[in-house]
């Protein structure tokens, strides 16, 4: 069976979002009239347009083959986990340990498997960010865990 999966899924998701926006806006916000639009009017209109566009994308995709798209799962996971660690740790973990951890986690995705450069990179990036953001821009983040 030949299907263009990215367009099919993308179009379907967009159509669903559009529909959700229409319903949510209709239930929660005042529509007003064309003359005096309420807060719900513009988003509901856009939601309708998005739902139609989603169908326009998804329906033809059902009938044609799509291109193979390799997904970089490992890279995406490493980068996202690194960001989450930083976000969760920045206020209590202290700038230095959190930055080191973030760089090391992010570098897992790199094609070079050796260890030395990762440690060096973590040290350099941490030093730079402490200098620029803590001392330079005077950001109020503790350097070490409290």
């Amino acid at each position: 069976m030949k299907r263009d999966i990215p367009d099919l899924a993308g179009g379907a998701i967009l159509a669903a979002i559009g529909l959700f926006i229409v319903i949510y806006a209709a239930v929660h916000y005042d529509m007003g009239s064309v003359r005096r639009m309420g807060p719900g009017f513009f988003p509901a209109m856009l939601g309708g347009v998005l739902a139609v566009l989603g169908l326009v994308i998804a329906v033809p995709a059902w009938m044609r083959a799509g291109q193979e798209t390799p997904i970089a799962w490992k890279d995406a996971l490493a980068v996202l986990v690194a960001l989450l660690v930083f976000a969760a740790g920045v206020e209590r973990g202290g700038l230095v340990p959190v930055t080191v951890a973030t760089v090391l986690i992010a570098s897992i995705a790199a094609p070079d498997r050796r260890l030395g450069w990762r440690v060096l990179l973590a040290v350099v990036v941490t030093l730079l960010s402490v200098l620029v953001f803590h001392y330079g821009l005077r950001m109020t983040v503790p350097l070490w865990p409290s």
Partner: protein
Amino acid sequence: MSGWEGFLHGLSVALQPEVLIYCVFGVVLGTFVGVLPGIGAMATISLLLPITYYLSPEAALIMLAGVYYGSQYGGAVASILLRLPGTPQSAVTTLDGYPLAQQGRAGVALFTSMTSSFLGSFFGICVLIVLSGFLSRAATAFGAADYAAMMILGLVAASTIGAKHPAKGLAMVVLGLILGCVGTDVNSGAQRFTFGQAELMDGVNLVALAMGLFGVAEVIANIQVAERTGVPRRIAMRDLLPRREELKRIPFPALRGASLGSFFGALPGTGSTISSFLAYATERRISRHPEKFGNGAVEGVAGPEAANNAAAISAFVPTLTLGIPGDPIMALMLGALVIHGVQPGPLMLEARPDMFWGLIASFGIGNLLLLILNLPLIGIWVSMLRIPFRWLYPAILIFVCLGVYSVRGAPFDIFAVALIGAIGYALSLARFNPALLLLGFVLGPLIETNLRRALLISRGDPMIFLERPISAAFVAAIAALILVSVVQSLRRVRPA
């Protein structure tokens, strides 16, 4: 203020040391990221947005603009040496730049691209001065309906012209418009789509959105790809000088490219990428030796490079005089100005001459700097291509985190960046253009305000969009664009 007086006044602004230093920083950083495949102007400007909170609006805009046109100079380097466009605008430069490099004439290709870029920018500056004076006077006749129609035309044009899947582009624009609705409604004070999150009351954070879509998503997409760049040979100063016969083939293609570029750059929806392709096609068509194109024709480098630089400058015309960005990069610039409480529009020339003329003068200074710095320093830029991406991307991520956190000290924003980054990567996998989402996001609140105002004035009669000649022309153009894309899409489904 006349053009010349204004320019002199602008020089007095742009040459202040605390402004000049950001201009230099912007163009150098722009060249650097332009040279490197994997990070573009869009990502870099997103990353710099938090820094602009610490600067005056003039310095901020001059720095961000410097990154943009600086990246156009740098983009050509990777295109010529590696056949990897450093920026999308320089993709067409690979066609003849890379064959020249293979014939051992990389230096000549680089010289051609740098000088043509300079010519193009200079032409663009002149067009910007003339057109913006004219447009800001004409814009006083614009009403709310005209603004709304023009912005919608810009969005439709940006997502349909030259696009393979116009529906996907339009869907991104509409999604961006919806995201722009999040937050407190200006007219009624209602909280829209905040889902009880206090952090969303001011709307989706532009910095988090831009960093997620362009910083994080591009890092993920490039970790493996950008590692595979080959190592180019060294280039010495004397390799740069073209033969006399080649030198003569630069100015006219560059001038033609510059005219095309400044025209299409100023139009909403068409920008420097399209201009560079048009310039290439034009040069090949009018050449007496079209067979040389693709095999190392100097004209094939000069035309497009002049065009994309001219377009990068003239793109500021609608942004500054109407407050309407024509492409996603300009949307980011406008966003940066709005962060500073500056709303560009027809009154900007009168109300903020420092910013307007300072920016224009900085274009002159920045491009001159790029020309005189980049030719002697070309060896350094080429060696930048040897930096492996794995050294850069963890640093970029830390910069993203600290930058977005520094804006208002909310870890919420870093979580938002991660989520938006994941969405952005998914969008790029499915070949949806996230830049159009950003364009819709920035224009959304402006369109809604003008739409509501127009219909309030007309007492709810939508005919106001057809009764006013200016907006009627825009509506006709929108209809034509949609019609053309529908016809093209139907043809693709059922080949005759």
